């Protein structure tokens, strides 16, 4: 089976995410980047599926040149092909623009059986791009999966719910979004890292995908951020060091706010 993983590269977990007041977008320039942990789970699940059923995994990522960090990581984990949507035309895309670009790229790849996304990226976590991609590709979306099984031409998942889970089934090709607890992504081995270096990453510009300013980029965005400000401040709290009285201090505080 051919499994396509959509994933992005985000500032790594050591970075305190900030919004640039001028562009009103998340600051990404000159920060250390990594493959989104949510995407790493998607790559891992794809690899496990092809290890069981045979096939190949393609990682597709949209972003600046930093995106190659994530694509290389996925290749080092074991993905066999990498696709990079690269170009200024993509900058400022909203969720639907992003989904249109990814769907257009997927349509240009060899025929696939499954698309896997994280349920949401770990930086902007809107959580709606996967279903948008599925709709644009005309394939069934199976979301919030915390268990995945492929059997012949059909796929079934455990879909997380408010009260437990639902067992949900569809025919392939399909799209699934996977939750962070689904698996523990493997660490790339030296052999994989070396092999990944030899793989040529395919790039697509918006023009290559037949997409214009009405489809992707800031000009196509259906949402516009008007302003970004500081939230209403909480009054600064009291910070104390525990010297054996920490528990008592908390009890006093609870009494003061009438919880006890």
């Amino acid at each position, binding site marked *: 089976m051919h499994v396509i993983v959509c994933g992005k590269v985000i500032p790594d977990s050591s970075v305190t995410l900030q919004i640039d007041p001028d562009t009103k977008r998340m600051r990404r320039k000159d920060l250390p980047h990594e493959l989104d942990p949510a995407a790493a789970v998607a790559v891992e699940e794809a690899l496990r599926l092809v290890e069981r059923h045979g096939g190949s995994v393609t990682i597709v990522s949209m972003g600046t040149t930093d995106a190659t960090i994530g694509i290389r990581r996925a290749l080092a984990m074991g993905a066999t092909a990498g696709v990079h949507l690269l170009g200024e035309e993509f900058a400022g895309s909203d969720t639907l623009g992003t989904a249109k670009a990814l769907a257009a790229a997927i349509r240009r790849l060899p025929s696939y059986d499954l698309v896997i996304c994280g349920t*949401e990226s770990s930086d902007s*976590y809107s959580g709606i791009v996967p279903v948008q991609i599925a709709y644009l590709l005309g394939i069934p979306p199976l979301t919030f999966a915390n268990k995945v099984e492929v059997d012949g031409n059909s796929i079934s998942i455990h879909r997380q719910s408010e009260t437990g889970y639902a067992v949900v089934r569809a025919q392939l090709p399909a799209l699934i979004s996977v939750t962070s607890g689904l698996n523990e992504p493997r660490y790339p081995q030296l052999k994989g890292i070396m092999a990944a270096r030899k793989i040529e990453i395919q790039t697509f510009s918006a023009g290559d995908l037949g997409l214009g300013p009405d489809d992707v980029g800031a000009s196509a965005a259906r949402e516009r951020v008007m302003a970004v400000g500081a939230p209403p401040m909480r009054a600064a709290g009291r910070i104390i060091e525990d010297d054996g009285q920490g528990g008592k201090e908390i009890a006093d505080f609870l009494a003061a706010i009438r919880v006890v």
Partner: protein
Amino acid sequence: MADTIWVYAEVVAGALTPTTLEMLSQAAAVGTAEAVLLGRAPADAAEVLGAYGAAKVYRGDDPVFDTYLVLPALEALAVLIRAHQPTAMLFASSYAGRDLAAGLSARLDCGAISDVGDFELTDGGVVATIPALGGSYLATSTFARPGPRLLLVRPKSFEARRIGGTATIENVPAPEEPALRTVEVIDRVEVPAEGPQLEGANAIVSGGRGLRTADAFHMLRELAELLGGAVGATRAVVDAGWVPYSMQIGQTGRTVKPDVYIACGISGAIQHLAGMKQSKAIIAINTDPQAPIFQFADLGVIGDVSQVVPQLITELKRRKGLA
């Protein structure tokens, strides 16, 4: 004419969800509120929706909406939105809400704003306020183009108010196309949550990686019991398998707003803050003085949870005359 705001009504565990009623109350406060209710629902659902402000309920009760996920509801909603053109449609930031808003934005080629904490109507438009990056920023967003406006609203953003109205009911036919019946529900499995429910708890004691062991949750349960509250957890310890997902608080878990939130060994990652920052009072216990959680704490104790929590338990028992 007043703006019409639609609310997608969700039923979980046999009852309309609190977020449905919260959104409806707010919609009724700023315009004419109408609800769309698809699939299985309690017999009095339309009555309850009316009582919380819905002037009208679009009701589709065909079983197809429960048996097949996303697409039948999406198609029914797309047809309704095209026909009636509400000023905005509100969905909860829930599993079903996110799937439907996402699919609709692709289906109708329109915007969907996520993570909305508040919104207002402005001369035919909608301005949404989004607590971005776990509430470190407050962003305001609007829709750049005409067309349907979809908002995904965070739980507990508004007060649910029973104002005692009555809704008229309009029947919604189920879409017939077999092509929409592709995502089939084979079974629904309930996983009972342990202990008291997080939603609605006045006090929540929550644990993160700083607890170091799954066993430490016993101590948090004892503390929660003394406070008459519930126990929560971060995604890190849920992913580690220490406690079930039903206890997860944060962006991908539950959103809570208790009178007091006691964060034990929690560093305060953005995703966790998103689910608890609205708590009335926050107490944090952590060994790392640099932990971001201290910036949000009303009382922060720099110390080891395994020392401080037992002290607190002993102290509370003493004051209650239990020890």
